[in-house]
């Protein structure tokens, strides 16, 4: 029963990882920007939700506010940081360092405003009920799984069925040709950043509602997103989501054999092994660097 319990909590964590990682993979796939400040969007969305709830806003309004903050942040970073850099030098490391600088700034600002410790919103969603003897499931499990599945399906449909989605996929394949067809790569990259950043919101809010969110959470989110994208195959949305789910499950199941302190390290061992032995990931194309 412990196994099923751990599997359940693994799926709950993994579903949220999957969405966050899919957002990262969406941005990377379309724009080829290694957006490590994705973790900062997560923290900002989480804190926006906490602050809005503290002000007594209705939860739906708080969710909207959090989404607005994440989307605006993602698009602003693209507009104010990545675009000027790409204008004069496209070295990926320059972009990476700039993005990392933003993560540090955001963490410092959030710390300054809300303190170092973690903050949480209390809801009735986290109250567990005994589903089977020895198996406790809180409603938040169904929320996490349902929201992730619904959003992921929606994004996949959007990418496959709409013109803008087609444009995003075209942007990742051949930006020059896209421009030749008269589509604006700028507008599409703004769309990728907006959409990708919006995908952190469920994870941020549910983290704030369950374990609580802290300023340093951005590092963890960034690491998980990178790990899931690499394991899933960089650029593949489906791969990132699946790998995110897998990482969440592995992280929880590892407790069966090792102490809990090692659970985070386990995901990084998975990441490391994948990079060394199968850098193209689960669904990626072969790496041509």
């Amino acid at each position, binding site marked *: 029963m412990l196994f099923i319990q751990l599997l359940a909590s693994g799926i709950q964590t993994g579903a949220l990882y999957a969405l966050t990682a899919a957002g990262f993979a969406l941005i990377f796939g379309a724009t080829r920007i*290694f957006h490590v400040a994705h973790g900062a969007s997560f923290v900002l969305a989480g804190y926006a939700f906490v602050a809005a709830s503290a002000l007594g806003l209705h939860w739906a309004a708080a969710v909207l506010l959090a989404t607005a903050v994440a989307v605006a942040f993602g698009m602003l970073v693209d507009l104010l*940081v990545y675009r*000027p*850099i790409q204008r*004069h*030098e496209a*070295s*990926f*490391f*320059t*972009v*990476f*360092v*700039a*993005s*990392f*600088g*933003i*993560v*540090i*700034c*955001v*963490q*410092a*600002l959030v*710390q*300054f405003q809300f303190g170092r410790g973690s903050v949480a919103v209390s809801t009735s969603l986290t109250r567990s009920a005994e589903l089977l003897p020895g198996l406790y499931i809180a409603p938040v499990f169904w929320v996490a799984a349902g929201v992730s599945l619904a959003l992921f399906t929606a994004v996949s449909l959007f990418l496959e069925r709409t013109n803008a989605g087609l444009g995003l996929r075209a942007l990742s394949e051949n930006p020059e040709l896209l421009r030749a067809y008269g589509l604006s790569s700028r507008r599409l990259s703004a769309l990728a950043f907006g959409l990708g950043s919006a995908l952190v919101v469920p994870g941020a809010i549910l983290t704030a509602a369950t374990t609580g969110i802290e300023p340093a959470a951005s*590092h963890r989110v960034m*690491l998980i997103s*990178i*790990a899931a994208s*690499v394991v899933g195959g*960089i650029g593949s949305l489906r791969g990132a989501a699946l790998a995110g789910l897998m990482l969440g499950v592995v992280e929880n199941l590892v407790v069966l054999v090792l*102490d809990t*302190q*090692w659970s*985070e*390290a386990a995901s*990084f*061992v998975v*990441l*490391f092994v994948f*990079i*060394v032995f199968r*850098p193209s990931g689960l669904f990626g194309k072969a*790496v041509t*660097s």
Partner: protein
Amino acid sequence: MIAYIVNLATLVAIFGIAAASMNLLIGYAGIFSLAHGAFFGIGAFAAAQLALNLTPDLLLAFLAAASLSIALSLCLALPALRVRGEYFIAASLGLQMFAVTVFHEAPSLTGGHGGLAGIPQATLLGIEVGTPWRFLAVAAVTLVLSLLLIQILMRGSFGRALMAMRDAESAAMAFGKNIPLLKTLAVAAGCGLVGIAGALYAFHISFVIGDSFTLEQSVLLQAMVIIGGAGTLAGPLVGTLLILLLPAALTFMPMIPPTEIGTVQQFLYGAAMTLLMIFRPGGIAGQSVGRR
């Protein structure tokens, strides 16, 4: 006040060595490791264990720290040979996170969450060098020697081959350069040198704990190199001075409450990294990029 300045100067020398070794990887070899903090820690723990169990001799500690770091640097060389760019950053990130877990959860090696305390004062060839002034001298001499070594290496054929590899790997390969060997050697040299810096750090602080060698430390070392100017000799030193003196200078600013200094410092160096990348990607000591 004097003691404070001597302490600060010693830290500048130690981190100067660490930043110079980071520069060897980032600036000359084009290997963007995020695991440098971990190797700094490996050197520190090696020196600490040696000093606690056998002898506080500095040269032996350097030897132990450097050899352990070099041996473990193979873990970093492996992904460096296989992948590049984002993939390598991700791999080094994984290594860094795993190392921190080991630092915390292997008490017999690293003292676990309590760290290793009470490291005796260093001796050099039988002479006590643990007093602040003497240790500063030792650290400064080590810094000068490391910079000299890097300068000589980078002027020679090894350095030119490394830079060729950084700028155009396939071209360097076409000229008959052994790329896997070059990368392995570069990683070993960078990690060995930061191991030595770690050994100095262990003796200087006389207390090592896993918390000092986290991802933040790696990023800090990267920031020193990048803010100063990657691929230049003076760059890492300029960056080290700026980053270490900034919190000291902030202490004297009256309007900042002392508890918030860490946060303000963090914000400033994050902002410096981002703004420099936008306006001057070569760093302070680097060449400014011309407009195309």
